[in-house]
């Protein structure tokens, strides 16, 4: 008889693996990404491909340098997913090197220097986005109006190659401000809010996503749908998304209620920018978020509140990246103080008292 395995139980395993989890997340991201491809055209597709390819390439290089099994770690799909989420947060017509530099920051500086998958403290995609936003304020805030693939004014593949790889190209894009940037700038200019809101996009457009913005962030509806699917497939629990959205809505609602002339409504906050993507796909990153349900609620509420605070009083119109990074830093602390109660012990770890005469 052959020598068989000697290991302690269990000798059975659920069907889930890291690779499958990542694949499911990708499936849930697909609708919002698809809309981005459709309305921002070939340049968006090219940028998306470049970013993911760079992320995978950097991951492979790092794995080779660290002498880890390359194929096994590449197949876990985490690099693809990081590149994917990063690409979704980039301006759709950004030049190729923005994607590549972003992928470098995310994979090498944000993840591999900490020791690879599972070891990083901060969300790699958000590290990259924050660094790009600070160091490339121009490239990172050039937005184009949606121009569906195949429509009359949309660039064809050759023009798109020029846009993404050629440094501008000869296409006159109808550039526009994102609603967040516009409102923020006008509020700074001293205009009353109802006048500003009349000039920007309606909540309805923001919800369905027919607005300028980052590649995959425009449509709150599709991201919401993908996020709900993510919860339904039990990849994530409801705690973080509900806490993020709830806190953001509560804080912006309170501000709006106190002074409707200078603070936009909670619906506008929920449907614009990266908030929705952040609630379902970014803040829920396993590695950098707390593990217990209570901890996740605290973490989510902190993220949601910080996003509104940065949008309202910060110097950047969008604060999702910074909010997530700040709360990532709090994760170990939250984890320490939100341990689940051990069976048969109270929260402090002392054995439970036996109630006298306890009877079922």
């Amino acid at each position, binding site marked *: 008889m*052959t020598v068989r395995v000697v290991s302690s139980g*269990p*000798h*059975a*395993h659920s069907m889930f693996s890291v690779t499958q989890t990542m694949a499911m997340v990708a499936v849930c991201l697909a609708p919002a990404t698809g809309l981005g491809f459709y309305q921002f055209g070939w340049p968006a597709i090219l940028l998306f491909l470049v970013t993911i390819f760079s992320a995978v390439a950097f991951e492979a290089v790092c794995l080779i340098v660290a002498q880890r099994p390359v194929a096994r*770690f590449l197949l876990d799909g985490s690099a693809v997913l990081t590149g994917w989420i990063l690409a979704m947060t980039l301006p759709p017509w950004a030049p190729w090197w923005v994607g590549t530099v972003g992928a470098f920051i995310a994979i090498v500086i944000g993840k591999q220097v900490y020791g690879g*998958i599972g070891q990083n403290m901060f969300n790699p995609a958000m590290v990259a986005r924050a660094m790009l936003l600070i160091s490339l304020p121009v490239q990172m805030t050039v937005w184009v109006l949606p121009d569906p693939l195949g429509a009359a004014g949309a660039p064809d593949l050759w023009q798109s190659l020029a846009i993404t790889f050629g440094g501008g190209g000869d296409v006159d894009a109808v550039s526009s401000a994102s609603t967040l940037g516009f409102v923020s700038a006008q509020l700074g200019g001293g205009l009353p809010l109802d006048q500003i809101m009349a000039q920007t996009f309606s909540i309805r457009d923001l919800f369905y996503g027919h607005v300028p913005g980052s590649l995959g962030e425009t449509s709150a509806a599709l991201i919401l749908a993908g996020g709900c699917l993510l919860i339904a497939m039990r990849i994530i629990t409801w705690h973080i998304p509900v806490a993020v959205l709830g806190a953001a809505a509560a804080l912006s609602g309170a501000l709006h209620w106190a002074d409707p002339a200078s603070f936009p409504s909670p619906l506008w906050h929920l449907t614009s920018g990266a908030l929705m993507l952040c609630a379902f796909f970014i803040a829920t990153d396993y590695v950098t978020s707390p593990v217990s349900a209570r901890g996740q609620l605290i973490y989510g509420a902190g993220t949601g509140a910080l996003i509104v605070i940065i949008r309202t009083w910060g110097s950047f119109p969008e604060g999702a990246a910074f909010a997530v990074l700040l709360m990532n830093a709090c994760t170990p602390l939250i984890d320490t103080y939100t341990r689940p109660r051990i069976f048969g*012990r109270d929260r402090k770890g002392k054995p439970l008292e*036996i109630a006298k005469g306890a*009877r079922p």
Partner: protein
Amino acid sequence: MKLFSLSSLRRGADMFSIRGGIHPETNKYLSAKSPIEKMPMPSIIRVPLQQHIGAEAVPLVKRDDLVLKGQLIGKARGPISANVHAPTSGRVIAVGHFTAPHPSGLPVATITIRPDGEDRWGPHLPRLRPEDADPKDIAQRVMEAGIVGMGGATFPAAVKLNLRERYPLHTLIINAAECEPYLTCDDRLLRERAEEVADGIWIMAKALGVEKVIVAIESNKPDAIEAMRRHILAAGPNARVMRVPTLYPMGSEKHLVQTVTGLETPARALTAELGVVVHNAATAHAVHKAVRYGEPLISRVLTVSGHGIKRPANIEVLIGTPVSEIIDHCGGLEGEPERILLGGPMMGLPIQSLRVPVIKGTNGILALQKTESRQKAAMPCIRCGGCIKVCPCGLMPMEMHARIRNDDLDGAVDIGLLDCIACGSCSFNCPSNIQLVQGFNYAKGRLAFKQSQKHQQEETKRLADARNIRQEAIAEAKRQAMAKRKAEMAERKKAEAAAASGAAPETPKEAAE
């Protein structure tokens, strides 16, 4: 922490939920339809003297002795131990050591019997009428019959029956949850021998002096629930069958008590302190046979299953039957199974050799193919929290494992290592295939080793100190004797001097003294 659970809406009003838990594929269909069959007489029987928690039994026979079926061949030693009986008649061909039915494969004291094929009964245990027997006598009979917890824990059943002397008890819970995948032996036992089991339950309830009896059966065994409900009156007027949710690890003693009664057993305490005692259904059956018929525990029903077995079945075997003969009886192995286990796939033990015998606590023999165990190379932890979500004990397995890997055993104990019941839910659910339970078992072993080393050191120090004190005392005594002698010498010299100055005829005599 569970903030909201759908199952809380679905469960019955009289039931309580437990934290965490998993839903592995039960695969009970493989053997659930096979009625219990009797295994033909094996060619050899090896009865280990240690089949239970506690002290090893003392052998009462020697080589070449002829034994009869049911004869006592190993006597319990100390309060926590169990008797061992000859499963059939035959000749003792060895009283020595043989490979244990354990992953280590280390030798244990074993009595080997060559059956003579006649299966001749020796004297049964004396007749006892439980209707008018003293609870003490029932417990004594259970002790004599060598009955242990047959769910796998193998704790001597009589010790648990005697708990009434120390705690006020009110409820007996019969654990027929059988939450381990694949296993169907308790299911079949309840379906086919419900009356006997109910009678055993009644006898145990009488021995414990409890007024309430609850038979807990998982919802995926409707036939067993029905059969038990039909015969539940035999277990007493206050007995009832409770259908508990199919959820691993429902059969864990403390978690079952929580599901059924809502009482949470404090850490490091016994359920008896809450007035609740849990016994296994197969144990009840063994009690019935011991008390009504005077038959000691010499056989049990077990499940032979897994996709590596040609003909999965439920078989009644004699204790000590070699695993290989049981597998042969079930048509042999299918291909080359990846692992052979004793017990269920969640907490069962892999064995190296098929020659090992089955013992009182063996409830299953599984031959698993690679597709069933789904063992893959471990990847780094991605902190998904899946282990925390399913842990029925409210632990953080990933963090405990990380601390153990950093050799911080005390740190792991601080966050609950010793509260872990090793149910394996965390490892089952881990998407990175990290062997969490293996890490915990390693750490527990290391801790036990350290503890014993520390104890040894303390003992050595205590002995050394005692020796020092003793030697000190001897030296002190010597010193004192010396001083005394010196003083005497001086005295004598003085006397001599005094005598020399005067008349000195007695001096030589004095010196000789």
